[in-house]
């Protein structure tokens, strides 16, 4: 590192700091960041705006950028004459059930792998690590056959069961507990607390940040998934939002405001959750990199 610094030094000595200052009243980075932020945010704003346009407004040429009047035809179609409310419910059920089950089972397993000594633990944990690097398209065909054998294809259960315990979640929780100091738990043990008691009363309250991360990650994965619902679900009424949305789009190719209203329903709940708990979401993204 010091070699690199040495090569860079020298040149700056003759350049006083004053000269380097531009005469902008704000940081020059705004000139880059402001347009970039607009480019990234504008499509989402456009989505919300166009859901409130009439098809005439959208179809007119050139398209209206700022509508002169708001219309709710698209929303009416989506809320009254489509399965969107049903899909929303399905997505919510699938996401909530898997979030809860992952919180429970990943904590239990992660804690056991981090703290308890038992025969086979290394082998089993290595197997779980191994499944982390297996792409889904390799397991999706047999998983479909298993769901078929269980008789739950085309039900919400087919979406929930494969995601009850995510390998990544087990790994995340284990990492957290490994890095947690043992002392507090040992005090509780000496007071006669069972392992489960220690986990529930001592370790889990300390694990709140890790649990929030796991919940956010599971929720995102489940709410946004398309490929597996596409395979496992065949009836309209059992679809989740991403699957329903793509189907709906195929059936309403010219009804843009309705499609965008459906899109808003699909995206906005996650977006609101993200705005409320940005830190947790960002942590859940970075933590999924830990496995690398």
């Amino acid at each position: 590192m010091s070699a690199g610094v040495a090569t860079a030094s020298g040149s700056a000595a003759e350049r006083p700091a004053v000269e380097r200052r531009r005469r902008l009243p704000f940081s020059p980075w705004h000139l880059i960041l402001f347009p970039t932020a607009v480019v990234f945010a504008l499509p989402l704003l456009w989505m919300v705006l166009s859901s409130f346009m009439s098809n005439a407004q959208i179809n007119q040429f050139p398209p209206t950028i700022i509508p002169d009047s708001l219309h709710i035809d698209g929303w009416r179609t989506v809320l009254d004459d489509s399965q969107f409310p049903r899909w929303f419910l399905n997505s919510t059920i699938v996401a909530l059930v898997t979030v809860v089950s992952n919180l429970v089972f990943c904590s239990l397993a992660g804690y056991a792998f981090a703290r308890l000594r038992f025969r086979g633990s290394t082998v089993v944990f290595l197997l779980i690590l191994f499944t982390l690097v297996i792409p889904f398209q390799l397991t999706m065909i047999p998983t479909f056959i298993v769901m078929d054998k269980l008789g739950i294809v085309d039900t919400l259960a087919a979406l929930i069961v494969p995601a009850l315990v995510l390998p990544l979640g087990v790994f995340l929780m284990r990492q957290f507990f490994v890095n947690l100091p043992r002392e507090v738990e040992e005090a509780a043990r000496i007071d006669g607390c069972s392992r489960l008691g220690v986990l529930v009363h001592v370790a889990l309250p300390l694990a709140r940040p890790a649990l929030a991360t796991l919940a956010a990650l599971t929720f995102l994965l489940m709410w946004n998934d398309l490929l597996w619902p596409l395979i496992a679900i065949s009836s309209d009424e059992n679809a989740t939002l991403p699957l329903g949305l793509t189907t709906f789009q195929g059936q309403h190719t010219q009804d843009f405001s309705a499609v965008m209203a459906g899109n808003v329903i699909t995206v906005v709940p996650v977006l609101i959750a993200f705005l409320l708990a940005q830190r947790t979401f960002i942590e859940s993204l970075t933590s999924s990199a830990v496995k690398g």
Partner: protein
Amino acid sequence: MSAPAPPPRTFAQRILGEHPTAWAFVLPAVVIIIGLAIVPIVWSLVLSFKSADLISPSQWVGLSNYDALLSDPKLREAIQHTVVYTALFVPISIALGLFLAIALNRPIRLIGIYRTAILAPFIASVAAQGVLFSFIFDQRFGVANAVLDNLGLGRMGFLGDPDQALFVIVLIGIWGGIGFPLVIYLAALQDVPRELIDAAAVDGARRWGVLRHVVLPQLYPVTIFLAVWQTLLSLQLFDLVYATTRGGPLDATFVIVYYIYNQAFELFNAGYAAAIAYVVALFLLVLVAAQLGYNRWRARRA
């Protein structure tokens, strides 16, 4: 759950560890992960040596699925499209992610709003991103063509043009996927020791010099990780294609996973699909192994 273990451990417990409690803790996880990940991995391998349509009983066909994939023009095309997507998406998303992370890693006003705006698309489901951009890039009614028209430029086919569709998908992929490299680089920048930067500044290094010779070398391992990760993502591209072009127009955006899905669940050649999936998975495993090997080599050197 088993009875609470009395604190002073018995001799037997010391020998056996805590088997009953521990296994009770891990059992649900093990059942699900073994049953729905490990078993399918093996099952897929078996399936790849069979002719299976998911309905009638399957038959052994030996290596003929693997034979067939070597001379399948449609698969070759799917691989080409996937490679083009990967070759564009990986370097662009990493370079842009790094650039934006450096820009966002600055204590200026509005930075929180900028960060939220740039990260927001990544949170949205890829299916929704695809549906949104099919509308924006719609040939007749989309805003993209309206803007081109207003600028006096010609209208474009975008997703409807076989020569453009794949590149438009790359563009959408970057819009929706930049969040990941960005967040990873932001976290990595926080970890660059402040003393290193200060020391360089004291030595008279200019901003660019500090970046080039102090910060970037620190980000090297993260960049390797991102290169592998983004490659894995690109090779598994599916949702975006399904939500925009469904592989069209004229198969111009037909990619590998779309082909696997198509073979297994639309044409019911599950055995053949499993064989393709296996070849792709082995390739991905080699990539991951190379990255892990690199990490270990670097750790040993340090």
